[in-house]
């Protein structure tokens, strides 16, 4: 196929990896509006002690959906969006290995999102169990609402979407690299997606299994998680975190890939320690499967398990450190151009280091026990997922938007967006470390008056984040309509970086390359 349908039909019938990538990205932006709005409702309710803005039922619903949407419908699809668009381009392929399967992966997200939104409107509303869905709270006895069943089915569908996508990525990367592109010649974004797809392939089926067990416990009275039937609630926690810890890397690794392109591009240098970063990525992928129970240090697991998982959690910090030092060495001695993409990439380092260090403190079990399920963990996970994944996605957005749309995002506006997001992020989440240490539990719709001051600060930070988000949307609308046109290589990075994305027109033609490039 070399002719592309026009208008709506193009988007509904496309199997072009670039169109599907854009569909993923637009969907994730759309979902981010809701995920962000829910966060706003939570921060509004917490802006003073004992506020009566949201009742506890509603608060818990928005809380659960904020997490669910941001993880499964914003960050993961956004990474898949960039992956779809750029992995084939970067390896010199004309499309993904299975274009129709690729379209199916995307279209599964839509009914899944429908189930999530629909679950608000059934009797009893949606899940109030947090995105972690711990049993017995999520069992039929304590959450009778069909909203929980819809939540489970929705996760099943996005899980299936991820698995199919992962197979596609693996087959594509293994088989469709341009001649001459050995594994250690793949650009780092491809490397991170290679490891990422492997993680998805091994971890997500476990989540699917756990969800199925939860569903049959609810629907047919099987007792996988019910002590009275010989089951065990801790089994859910083990299975859930066996998926959900690797999921953290599923959300972060491709972001690290993006940053590994942006940093050298705007330092006018080559990436430092390419092999080290690639190997560290693979190491994180493997060790990432051996740390899940650090989410369960207070659950009553055996001392031997605690000791093992504490150790592995420290071990995984080492390859993470390798990456951070390699990025620092990449910009060292460079000629840094502070484009918006570069600012977000540097902001990514600043914030991800914070999240990494606070994560490392959580490997210190006695400390973890004190702050587990407190606001300290809320702070930590937002430094990793917002400061890490989202900052990297924003770097990728400003970096690759010209390639995808043929238009350049307004850089002046971009600067304002960066500072709003960077400051807003720190004002919102930095105080939460302290709130957790002094005893504020997470997932609460109200708190003791002692915690009020820092909660007000956090809620104020949200306003900045909100403004940043709105301006970003405006910037995109503006750029698509009348932004400056982009040439093949608008940032002037191809001569040194030699990545194929900048060797073709913006946007690239259907099937990308008239002649498959050879890599020397």
């Amino acid at each position: 196929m070399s002719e592309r349908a026009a208008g709506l039909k193009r988007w509904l019938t496309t199997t072009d990896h670039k169109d599907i990538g854009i569909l993923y990205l637009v969907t994730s932006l759309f979902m981010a509006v809701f995920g962000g709005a829910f966060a706003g409702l939570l921060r509004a309710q917490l802006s003073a002690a004992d506020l009566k803005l949201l009742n506890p039922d509603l608060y818990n619903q928005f809380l659960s959906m904020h997490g669910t949407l941001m993880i499964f419908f914003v960050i993961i699809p956004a990474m898949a969006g960039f992956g779809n668009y750029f992995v084939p381009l970067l390896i010199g392929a004309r499309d993904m290995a299975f274009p129709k399967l690729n379209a199916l992966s995307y279209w599964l997200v839509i009914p899944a999102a429908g189930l999530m939104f629909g679950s608000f409107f059934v009797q009893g509303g949606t899940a109030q169990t947090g995105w972690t869905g711990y049993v017995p709270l999520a069992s039929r006895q304590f959450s009778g609402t069909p909203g929980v069943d819809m939540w489970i089915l929705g996760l099943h569908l996005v899980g299936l979407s991820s698995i199919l996508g992962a197979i596609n990525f693996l087959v594509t990367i293994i088989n469709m690299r341009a001649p001459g592109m050995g594994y250690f010649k793949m650009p780092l974004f491809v490397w991170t997606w290679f490891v990422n797809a492997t993680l998805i392939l091994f971890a997500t089926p476990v989540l699917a299994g756990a969800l199925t067990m939860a569903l049959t416990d609810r629907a047919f009275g099987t007792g996988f998680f019910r002590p009275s039937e010989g089951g065990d609630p801790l089994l859910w926690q083990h299975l859930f975190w066996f998926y959900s810890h690797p999921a953290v890397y599923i959300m972060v690794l491709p972001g690290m890939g993006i940053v590994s392109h942006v940093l050298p591009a705007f330092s006018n240098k080559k990436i430092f320690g390419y092999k080290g970063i690639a190997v560290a990525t693979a190491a994180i992928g493997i060790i990432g499967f051996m740390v899940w129970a650090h989410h369960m240090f207070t659950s009553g697991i055996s001392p031997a398990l605690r000791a093992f998982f504490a150790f592995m959690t420290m071990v995984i910090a080492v390859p993470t450190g390798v990456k951070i030092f390699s990025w620092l060495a990449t910009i060292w001695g460079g000629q840094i151009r502070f484009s918006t993409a570069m600012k977000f990439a540097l902001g990514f380092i600043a914030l991800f280091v914070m999240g990494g260090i606070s994560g490392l403190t959580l490997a210190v079990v006695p400390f973890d026990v004190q702050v587990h399920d407190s606001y300290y963990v809320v702070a930590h996970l937002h430094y990793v997922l917002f400061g890490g994944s989202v900052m990297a996605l924003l770097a990728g957005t400003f970096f690759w938007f010209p390639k995808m749309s043929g238009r350049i995002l307004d850089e002046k506006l971009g600067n304002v967006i960066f500072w709003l997001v960077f400051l807003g992020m720190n004002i919102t989440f930095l105080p939460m470390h302290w709130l957790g240490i002094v005893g504020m539990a997470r997932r609460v719709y109200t708190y003791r008056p002692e915690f009020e001051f820092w909660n007000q600060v956090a809620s104020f930070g949200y306003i900045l984040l909100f403004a940043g988000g709105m301006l970003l949307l405006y910037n995109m609308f503006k750029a698509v309509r009348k932004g400056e046109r982009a040439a093949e290589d608008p940032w002037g990075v191809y001569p040194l970086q030699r990545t194929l994305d900048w060797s073709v027109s913006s946007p690239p033609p259907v099937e990308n390359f008239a002649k498959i490039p050879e890599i020397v």
Partner: protein
Amino acid sequence: MKKIRVFLMTGLTLVGLASLGWADEPITNWLVNPEGPLARQVRSNFFFAMVMIMPFLFLAEGLLLYAIIRFKAKPGGRAAAFHENLRLEVLWTVIPALTLAITAVPTYQTMRAMEVPPKSDLVVGVIGHQFFWEYRYPKQGVQFAEEALVVPAGKVVTLNLSSVDVVHSWWVPAFGVKQDANPGRITHAWFQAERPGHYKGQCAELCGKLHAKMFIDVQVVTPEEFEQWILKKKGVSLPPDTTRKS
């Protein structure tokens, strides 16, 4: 090491005061005002880990900031061409690994202290309900719910926790204790509060609608007051038991 501790403590106290200044009853926690040997050990473990780990935070953020200021592109400037250095790469793999190995030592010691309590002076069963706590003193024959847990100062209190419905978590920050209470399983924790007083905590595991209101109160009293309290409690919680008294 000593200096860093003093520095950390002053900083903490300042932040603590700033955030608690106007609260009528100051909140207590293991970091600012740890209560008992376990909480103190947790704190020193934390300080040790901080001393080991924080230099990496300052190093990374410092290098980043320096690079941002120092390597801003200049007209006609030329970027360095290096992109590997094996010795550097080995160093930044090995040094963090060694640091973490050292950090692990006191961590494992403290974990052991948390898991193996000294000889117990008082056993209390803690049972989570949506959304309140029930306490049982099996030896003393006392049980009640929705009231403060009362324990004698200076005594080792061991807890056996479970739940009748969903997962809860018993958390009193000042004692350095947080332990999930699971249905169908008994978990353990211990603490030893030295100073009489009133300590607050709350359920830490999302347990449903009123999770936020599932507070914990612990009243630490002198051993004599504790005896008195037990006697009084028996009178209240049991029907007037005239046969045994006479």
